[in-house]
């Protein structure tokens, strides 16, 4: 139990010493992605084989390290989920990809015993072999601040976190700075909320600090509900202490003594790791009463969500922590005045808090040197969809979309053509080819009619139907509408009905205008952020792909060939040999003809099942 600042310094020194005791370190990725591809079995196998060799295997930071041995650790998410399970070898910084249990023996024999690199496990592209992690194009353009430890240290060890200078920012905030100085530093840094809105964090903290109330709270929004976004999950799993430290600094600065972390139910691993991290911090005395004899008390609680997207909205989230239905309320009063349990509350998201320790340690000027003027710092993005390198990335704000998709993301999967990217989840919008050189920062993306949101980037190729995408998002939002306010509850339902009608081939002239009119009304009158932005994907796809909507409505045609009901299957008369195979295989008897002359499909009977397309030996049947 650490009694004062001196104790913490001493413990940190010990941790640094034991961290440096072993130069050979093996880091097995234990993020959700790699775990489900079997990384824990690899960890167990490596341990077994190393020990069988008679080599000392250090699975945690030891108080008295052996003179010789290897350190084996379970790390947080490396981000390169597509190539998992990943194993990083230090000190060289080699990255082994798609490792299997059967590869472990070779890793122990060659790499651990002889220090040799195993070429076949390295990342390869176009015949080129990339030995170290830093050389791989996916990592090259990244700047890792909030993810700096992810993949590099044992995510479940407070001692490892301390060895990297962990909790020194909290220490600095407690002993070397006044609360006002801490808030000023955060304000000066220009840190903006990473959860979507981009509201300046420092201003929020100052507002809470100003309130005169017996109890204040710090709340962390880990309800990362946007489909296709998993940045926050990776931080909570891969470097939980960094986020706790950010919350503790916020508590010390604003005068809050209690904090709540609200995590989605779909992230069981994150909940488990946060629980462990909190227990560890408590055990060494970084949480509790009179922390390090500074007079500051702080406790942290975890609340698991129960499956409601709307709980990502501030007032719904606090209602849910209070054990109520997660429904937003009318604002003002705002959360900074009347938040959790009606008390002043600092509410930020995971990535925002994770930025705080670096800002306090390295200063606002350093933070502002990254990114662009109005949006300093970095942003973590989850790139998914039709992209070569699916995964988690962190780049400076203002990096262009082209760099993200082509340099980091490796371009479109299977060499396809880029069509659009959906940014900001169901509240965001689409960016297209003309936006490829758009710098990704809060204001530029907003100007282009989308929003950074939490940072999900879903890349879509030219085989994607944008009307269907709009329907997909509207279906999601409609399902998740809490039902409290009429514009959202009824408006999204009507919009969904219209979109369903269009993709089914029953669109009517005037539907586009009706959609836009509904969208305008909903955004102007809905109660909360979910409702206000519910129509954004529709408005944005209409703006960028109006011709696709028109083709669906006027020509009853889906240009991407996705919408089932609008598909048209036709036999090419010049290729058809009249073998009758298709007509025999048709489940509804829609194909007829005379042997040895071209057959014809009766479109009124055809159910577009595609059975004929696959049976035709001459590839004479086409889907249009």
């Amino acid at each position, binding site marked *: 139990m650490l009694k004062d600042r001196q104790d913490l310094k001493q413990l940190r020194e010990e941790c640094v010493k034991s961290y440096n005791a072993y130069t050979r370190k093996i880091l097995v990725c234990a993020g959700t992605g790699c775990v489900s591809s079997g990384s824990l079995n690899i960890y167990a196998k490596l341990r077994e084989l190393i020990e069988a060799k008679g080599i000392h295997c250090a699975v945690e930071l030891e108080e008295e390290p052996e003179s010789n041995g290897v350190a084996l650790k379970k790390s947080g998410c490396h981000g390169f*989920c597509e190539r*998992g399970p990943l194993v990083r070898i230090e000190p060289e910084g080699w990255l082994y990809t798609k490792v299997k249990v059967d590869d472990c023996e070779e890793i122990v024999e060659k790499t651990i015993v002889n220090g040799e690199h195993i070429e076949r496990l390295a990342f390869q592209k176009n015949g080129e072999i990339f030995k170290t992690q830093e050389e791989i194009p996916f990592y090259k353009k990244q700047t890792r601040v909030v993810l700096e430890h992810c993949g590099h240290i044992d995510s479940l060890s407070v001692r490892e976190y301390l060895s990297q200078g962990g909790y020194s920012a909290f220490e600095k905030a407690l002993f070397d700075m006044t609360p006002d100085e801490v808030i000023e530093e955060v304000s000066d840094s220009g840190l903006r909320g990473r959860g979507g809105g981009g509201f300046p964090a420092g201003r929020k903290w100052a507002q809470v600090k100003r309130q005169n109330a017996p109890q204040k709270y710090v709340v962390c929004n880990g309800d990362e509900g946007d489909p*296709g976004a998993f940045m926050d999950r990776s931080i909570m799993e891969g470097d939980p202490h960094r986020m706790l430290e950010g919350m503790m600094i916020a508590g010390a600065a604003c005068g809050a003594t209690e904090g709540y972390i609200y995590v989605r139910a*779909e992230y069981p691993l994150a909940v488990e790791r946060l629980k462990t991290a909190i227990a560890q911090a408590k055990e060494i005395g970084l949480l509790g009463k009179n922390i390090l004899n500074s007079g500051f008390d702080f406790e942290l609680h975890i609340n698991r969500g129960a499956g409601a997207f709307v709980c990502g909205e501030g007032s719904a989230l606090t209602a849910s922590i209070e054990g109520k239905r997660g429904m937003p309320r009318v604002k003002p009063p705002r959360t900074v005045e009347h938040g959790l349990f009606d008390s002043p509350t600092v509410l930020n998201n995971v990535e925002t808090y994770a930025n705080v320790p670096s800002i306090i340690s390295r200063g606002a000027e350093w933070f502002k040197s990254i990114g662009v003027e109005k949006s300093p710092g970095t942003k973590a993005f989850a790139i998914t969809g039709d992209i070569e390198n699916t995964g988690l990335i962190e780049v400076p704000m203002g990096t262009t979309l082209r760099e993200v998709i082509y340099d980091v993301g490796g371009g479109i999967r299977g060499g396809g053509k880029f069509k659009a990217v959906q940014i900001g989840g169901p509240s965001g919008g689409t960016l297209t080819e003309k936006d490829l050189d758009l710098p990704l920062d809060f204001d530029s993306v907003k100007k282009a009619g989308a929003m950074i949101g939490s940072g999900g980037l*879903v890349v879509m190729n030219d085989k994607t139907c944008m009307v269907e995408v709009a329907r997909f998002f509207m279906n999601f939002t409609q399902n998740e509408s809490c039902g409290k306010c009429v514009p959202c509850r009824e408006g999204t339902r009507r919009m969904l009905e219209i979109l369903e009608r269009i993709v089914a081939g029953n669109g009517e002239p005037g539907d586009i205008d009706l959609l836009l009119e509904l969208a305008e009304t909903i955004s102007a009158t809905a109660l909360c952020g979910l409702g206000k932005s519910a129509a954004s994907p529709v408005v944005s796809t209409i703006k960028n792909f109006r011709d696709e909507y028109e083709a669906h409505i006027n020509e009853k045609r889906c240009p991407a060939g996705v919408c089932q009901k609008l598909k048209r299957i036709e036999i090419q008369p010049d290729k058809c040999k009249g073998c009758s195979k298709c007509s025999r295989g048709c489940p509804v008897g829609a194909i007829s003809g005379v042997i040895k002359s071209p057959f014809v499909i009766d479109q009124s009977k055809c159910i577009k099942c595609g059975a004929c397309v696959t049976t035709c030996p001459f590839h004479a049947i086409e889907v249009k």
Partner: protein
Amino acid sequence: MQSTIQLAEVDEIIDRIGCEEKNIISILQGVQEHYRYLPAEVFPHIARRLGVGEARLFSVATFYENFSLEPKGKFVIKVCDGTACHVRQSPPILARLREELGLSESKKTTDDLMFTVETVSCLGACGLAPVITVNDHVHAEMTPDKASEILKQLKEGTAEC
């Protein structure tokens, strides 16, 4: 097998979490983890213990997607239909599972209470899309055929969970 609900078990859950109104969601989660659903019998009891109306509990239980007032299967299969999984073809996987188990959008659990099939909006494992989970255990890069294989193993009792 779970025809009678032991109120002593429910009490234990309440006491472990803390008998306070703000803990309603956690208590219901605890009960659901134990029984795999929220049996009607527990409501009057929890309401009495917390000193709130039953309606207050039902308001929470019916609002959140994760709560079920009907028994769930031994194996709860969640098919991710988040954006990333959707664009990488998760709908055919859902269709196959439903077809093989005789389930539909409205009928989510098999009559023998072995399987429940539901969708989830995103599991955050987009790098492995499309994914399904069986009792929270993630299965990556699914195809309809792989899903059938998992079902077969679950029925034979040879799968991991």
